[in-house]
């Protein structure tokens, strides 16, 4: 690793840390700008109880002091108690949903990448043919629907109209439909990206050299072309992670999966502020970390990147 690269990684790391801190700061400020106290919503409580509760949650201290206490707690992974579910730690709820969501998200990402790269290469190889045209039309259509509409349409098609797939996430094979509906949009995007970068690579001189050497076609494509065509896809990783995280809110809700997303939507509807803050911070840490890893990966894979 060169010194230049170490400097670059340090810079990205600094940006990642600052981003997370800023997110915590924004989350805290925004949630404390809310005028309604969380306690008078559920049912009318006597004022003395409200004061006692505020003291318990530390809401009577000055705002800056509250912030630093919160920051310290967050760094120890302590997000406090849920306001809506009394006596339950936010961290425990998050832990419960994390596994479901992580499995769902990772499977969706893997499916999107595998199928997307395959279809994209196919489209590039049969360029301007009927298969290529078809793939282009389908992918264009796919990126024109919001995630929840896509999920609902899938649910209706394969759950109601032609019931061949289970509609609830907790049934056997039930995660199939959530994974598919979550992966369709990134899949379409990866397909288009692979197609254009593959076409770009196939026009390069070293591919012509490989042909001239008399290499077999599939070896050229899978060994020489694909490897280089894949680098631009890493740049799509960031938007894909963001899409999958946000899409999972919707998909988990629709297919009744007890993941982070469902908890998040529920906590929004219940005005469970500690829970909203905890989920936001946890998810942004996940997103920023993954983004950081992809950034580094990109520089490692693509030797041509200039670190300035």
């Amino acid at each position: 690793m060169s010194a230049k690269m170490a400097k670059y990684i340090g810079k990205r790391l600094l940006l990642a840390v600052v981003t997370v801190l800023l997110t915590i700061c924004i989350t805290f400020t925004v949630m404390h700008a809310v005028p309604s106290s969380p306690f008078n919503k559920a049912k009318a409580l006597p004022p003395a109880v409200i004061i006692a509760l505020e003291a318990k949650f530390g809401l009577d201290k000055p705002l800056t002091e509250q912030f630093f206490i919160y920051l310290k707690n967050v760094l120890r992974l302590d997000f406090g108690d849920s306001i809506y579910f009394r006596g339950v730690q936010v961290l425990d709820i998050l832990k419960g949903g994390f596994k479901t969501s992580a499995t769902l998200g990772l499977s969706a990402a893997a499916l999107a990448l595998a199928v997307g790269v395959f279809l994209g290469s196919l489209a590039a190889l049969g360029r301007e043919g009927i298969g290529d045209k078809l793939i282009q039309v389908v992918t264009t259509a796919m990126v024109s629907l919001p995630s929840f509409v896509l999920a609902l349409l899938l649910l209706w098609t394969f759950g109601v109209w032609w019931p061949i797939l289970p509609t609830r996430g907790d049934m056997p094979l039930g995660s199939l439909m959530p994974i598919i509906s979550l992966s369709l949009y990134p899949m379409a995007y990866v397909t288009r990206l692979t197609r254009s970068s593959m076409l770009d690579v196939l026009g390069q001189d070293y591919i012509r050299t490989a042909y001239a050497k008399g290499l077999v076609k599939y070896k050229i494509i899978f060994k020489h072309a694909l490897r280089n065509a894949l680098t631009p896809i890493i740049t799509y990783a960031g938007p894909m992670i963001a899409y999958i995280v946000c899409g999972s809110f919707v998909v988990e809700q629709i297919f009744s999966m007890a993941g982070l997303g469902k908890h998040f939507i529920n906590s929004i509807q219940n005005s469970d502020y500690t829970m909203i803050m905890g989920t936001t911070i946890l998810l942004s840490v996940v997103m920023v970390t993954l983004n950081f890893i992809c950034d580094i990966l990109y520089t490692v894979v693509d030797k041509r990147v200039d670190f300035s």
Partner: protein
Amino acid sequence: MEQFDAKRFFSFHTDLSVFEPATDEEKRQQSRMRESTSFFRDGMRRLRRDKVSMTCLFILLIVALIAFAVPPFYPYDYYSTSASRSSNSTKFLKPFEYSPKEQAILEGGGEVFPHILGTDDLGRDYAARVIYGTRISLTVGIIAALIVVAIGVTYGAISGYLGGRVDLVMMRIVDLIYSLPDMLIIILLSVSMKDIFTNGPLAGSPIAKFGPNLVSIFIVFGLLYWVGMARLVRGQVLSLKQQEFVLAAESMGARTPHIIRKHMIPNCISVIFISAALQIPSAIFTESFLSFMGLGVSIPMPSLGSLASEARGHLISRPYLLLIPAIAIFLIILSLNLLGTGMRDAFDPKLKEADK
């Protein structure tokens, strides 16, 4: 000229007296300029030849016409339940079905405008809701795009034009905002904004009546979404400053205002235009996503997203309640996406060549 008037004997000097000045007609023949065409007109010519883009434009114009011109003449609105309010029989009418009360009017010789798409679970005319929903979604998309253009272009142009340390600081801010998980912050802001407008000091203000969630969407776009545009414009301004044609113009004595007017702005405009066109779908997506979570437009106002999300409960019995708004969203977003790509190809032929 006078000093060369007489041709000296044996000299190679040209005898000017045999020449005569060219007439204006002859001068005009000399200039081999093609008919001047502006950058914009040139792009439009290419765009007009693209059948896909023209179809999309046509679809968008029709959708916009229906959404903005039909409501004043349409006999139903999006919030009143039709005819007999008390009975259950107005709920879930099938397309072109009449409620018993309307049936009675019809039999008595009166006229009732048909419910083209039936009614929803509260007996509201669904066609009216879809039309109003389209209108809201389009408005959200366009206003959000305008906000993004206004902030992004100003910021990016200043940053790129000033350069140096100012540029460095301004771009670090952009980097930071860019790396924020925007969707999470949008949700967060929408949650708190909703509370501020309903419980806080702003409750009852005109903004609160207009729909706190819509306002919060615009605020969020103003705060977070302009960074992409700012980067784009800055990059464009930076690279334009170093282009050969700018050097050529400078070397021919063009002044800075002329270069900015004739070279910078026309070259930026297409990028801004295209990016704005692609910003609209993103805003409509965001709005529909928030609607799904109950953070979108305020009830009873419909948007295409909230209509699709309301249809969720009736998926088995009445799938068309989902299909109609889904098709509307699909048509709008698809047309905008294709038109955006078409515009990019038309206004930036360089990009298209690189694409192939």
